[in-house]
């Protein structure tokens, strides 16, 4: 199947204190119709900035280069007025805190209807009807009543549902969700993940889930992209990366995660701190925290290379990853 999104050599830089800071470097990936891709990384990994740049939402001092092909249309560097023809219609994005994404002074139905009026030239009354239908689809009880509410009158979970409804109104090909459940309680998070699963099945929407939570990834993603220091360090299907991680960072992240289903005696954290983008280590950005690094890793940057099983990996080390044997 032809991919709905193809990203080629995406780079994002920010002008900071008179110098240029790289937030995303040489990102290449594609997204198939209906696929759920989890983008995993810690603060400063570039996972959010990569997708903000595709949506044309970088801060003023940010610049993107490379390509993000939506079909044959390149979104990178497209002026805002032209982007608006695609944003919201073909590709939509939702964020962690729905309150900051909703207009506090407009009723829910007004905000939702606006999307349809704008993108599909729909008449206002009809747009509001469709908005209410979509609210019902995303599991909002009494959608008629909630449609007349202002955002502050809704709970956090309801607001996130409203955002999802808004994002799905035009049946976009791609939905990008940046930490959509991080601010929610765990029982509400479970409802929301269930909703995402149903919606990607029903609408055939491709979902990009940006998250730091490996538990969320395991339950929902088909494929994963693990990012560190602005680069993809390992990509592949979810089972492969969870059960057979080959990049020491992926391995470390999985070993740092406490499990709910079994008692762990001691976690194996990754030593040290994630790097500051202003002072990225030379060579492989992960080498100062890596138990497996050798001289080469300090000098040269490992390229992202395709291996068997569709996995791509950026690491010079090819032996087995067993921490206890390597850490003195």
């Amino acid at each position, binding site marked *: 199947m032809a991919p709905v999104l193809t990203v080629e050599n995406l780079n994002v830089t920010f002008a900071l204190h008179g110098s240029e800071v790289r937030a995303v470097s040489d990102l290449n990936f594609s997204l198939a119709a209906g696929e759920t891709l989890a983008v995993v990384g810690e603060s400063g990994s570039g996972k959010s900035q990569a997708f903000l740049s595709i949506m044309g939402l970088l801060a003023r001092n940010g610049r993107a280069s490379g390509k993000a092909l939506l079909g044959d249309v390149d979104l990178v560097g497209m002026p805002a007025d032209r982007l608006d023809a695609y944003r919201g219609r073909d590709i939509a994005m939702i964020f962690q805190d729905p309150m900051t994404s909703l207009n506090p002074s407009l009723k829910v139905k007004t905000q939702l209807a606006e999307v349809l009026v704008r993108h599909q030239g729909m008449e206002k009354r009809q747009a509001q009807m469709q908005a209410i239908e979509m609210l019902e689809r995303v599991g909002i009880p009494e959608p008629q009543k909630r449609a007349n509410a202002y955002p502050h009158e809704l709970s956090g979970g309801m607001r996130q549902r409203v955002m999802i409804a808004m994002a799905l109104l035009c049946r976009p090909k791609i939905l990008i969700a940046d930490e959509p459940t991080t601010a929610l309680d765990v029982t509400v998070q479970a409802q929301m993940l269930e909703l995402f699963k149903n919606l990607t099945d029903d609408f055939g929407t491709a979902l990009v889930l940006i998250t730091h939570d490996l*538990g969320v990834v*395991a339950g929902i993603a088909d494929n994963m992209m693990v990012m560190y220091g602005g680069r993809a360090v390992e990509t592949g299907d979810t089972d492969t990366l969870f059960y057979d991680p080959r990049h020491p960072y992926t391995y470390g992240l999985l070993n740092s995660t406490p499990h709910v289903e079994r008692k762990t005696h001691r976690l194996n*954290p990754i030593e040290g701190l994630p790097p500051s983008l202003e002072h990225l280590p030379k060579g492989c950005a992960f080498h100062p925290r890596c138990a497996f690094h050798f001289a080469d890793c300090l000098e040269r940057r490992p390229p992202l290379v395709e291996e068997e099983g569709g996995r791509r990996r950026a690491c010079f080390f090819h032996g087995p990853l067993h921490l206890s044997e390597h850490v003195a």
Partner: protein
Amino acid sequence: MSATEELLRVDGLKKTFSIGVGLFSRPLVLTALEDISFSVRRGETLGIVGESGCGKSTLGRCILQLLAPDEGRVLWLGQDLTQLDTEEMRKRRRDLQVIFQDPLASLNPRMTVGDIIADPLRTLMPELTRQQRRERVIRIMEAVGLLPEMINRYPHEFSGGQAQRIGIARALVTEPKLIVCDEPVSALDVSIQAQILNLLTDLKDEFGLTLIFISHNLSVVRHVSDRIMVLYLGRIVEMASGDAIYGDARHPYTKALLTAVPIADPQLARQRQVDALKGEIPSPINPPSGCTFRTRCRYARAICAELRPPLETLAGERLVACHRWREIEELGEAAANS
């Protein structure tokens, strides 16, 4: 000293907040905690879990007397802390310390790391000389993994994980017996979270600490806790050993909560049936009558709306507050329809 010695006992604790005035000038009261009774033994880690508004942070603050409870007693080695005057309580604070969630926000940006860590010593142990204070600070910095040469730096120069180490050092410096950890790793990246959890485990052994570990993250709580208390809308719904809670929960809320926690294992995650709770947590200003969980409970019956379920003590020192837990144990799923 016996390993099961009771360090802290909380007895019939209630805490309300008045939050302004409602219709017809009726005062609006939020009941944050009600009927909270439990004890903490020397050397154990008690985990307190629950979702927003369950009262877990308020409980931590009431134990530390940072908030005054409306009713009930907080007994520290038999002495009721709620009855102490400020000066007497100040002396006790040496023994009871706290670590907060947001490490940077809880550190004074204008004080050096050394001064921040030494601060509790100045107020709580004024008998120490300057030299003794400095020695203690350096010893504690080393214990939490901070380099002693960082002593003159300021908080903004540190990452979140290191700032949390400073927070831990400040809590440890008076050599307390009990530390209340309120979401201590929630703001940290996964790899750093694991470092801090391991550090807390090591320090607990090294300093013979007792911990109350408050968190919304059930995976983290399972990892650190010996016993676990589950709160819902200000009340204890279940309390038991970690293994009993995670392997054999009795309360429908505990069970639902556990199936909602994401499992970091794709095959298990696919097999699992999520018991998706209906709706969201009701407002604590106007909580449901009887059992506060009944509005989201599949097993709720008429009695659950009429009568608040008492907190029953079961074998193996378990506590559970549910009218129907026995029926549910016997009938399983059928109890939802019976």
